[in-house]
């Protein structure tokens, strides 16, 4: 089974702190994603990475940066946390080519989420 793990389930930080959220997947997936989830807004894509050291902005990248130095690990960084970044953060991964279905229509596998509170 694919496993995506996130470094913390709950995190409380103060305004202005630098925050690191880590995500690790064990299925050798090429793609990794960071989303934030807020009530009534669903999941919004912050950043995604399709290869080591490669990244692309999602829909709401402002105030965030990412790092992917190894294939299995994708980090989300809040350079200076603010209260409006209080949210649930979800990491996901997917592969480029699904050998089972012989297609590129691939599901994303999610971690359990990190609930971040910025005071």
């Amino acid at each position: 089974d694919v496993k995506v793990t996130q470094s913390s389930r709950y995190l409380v930080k103060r305004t202005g702190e630098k925050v690191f959220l880590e995500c690790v997947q064990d299925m050798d997936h090429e793609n990794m994603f960071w989303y934030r989830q807020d009530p009534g807004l669903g999941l919004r894509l912050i950043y995604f990475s399709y290869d080591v050291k490669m990244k692309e902005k999602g829909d709401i990248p402002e105030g965030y940066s990412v790092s992917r130095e190894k294939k299995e690990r994708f980090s989300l960084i809040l350079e200076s946390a603010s209260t409006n970044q209080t949210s649930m953060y979800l990491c996901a991964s997917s592969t480029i080519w699904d050998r089972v279905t012989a297609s590129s229509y691939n599901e994303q596998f999610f971690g359990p989420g990190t609930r971040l509170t910025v005071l």
Partner: protein
Amino acid sequence: SQQGEEDPQALSIQEGENATMNCSYKTSINNLQWYRQNSGRGLVHLILIRSNEREKHSGRLRVTLDTSKKSSSLLITASRAADTASYFCATGSGYKLSFGAGTTVTVRA
């Protein structure tokens, strides 16, 4: 940007009843996926339907896709308490998925 919109926002049914939720989207898609999220947890993939498919089944799940109307429906038959969760549709284009805000389903015992 949020592509899919689920309807209704919330649904409460008795155990054993069927639950139906709908998803509408705006632009052309390669595939549409449905995910489930139990309270405060990550999302779990349920089923994927490609743009050239009209209906798909998986256990108690039935998904339909109407690309002319840009809409999909998810039917859960013979619901159980364990089906209590939020359900999201996600439209796929390339590597990325765009998620709707979800339908919260409560199954009463």
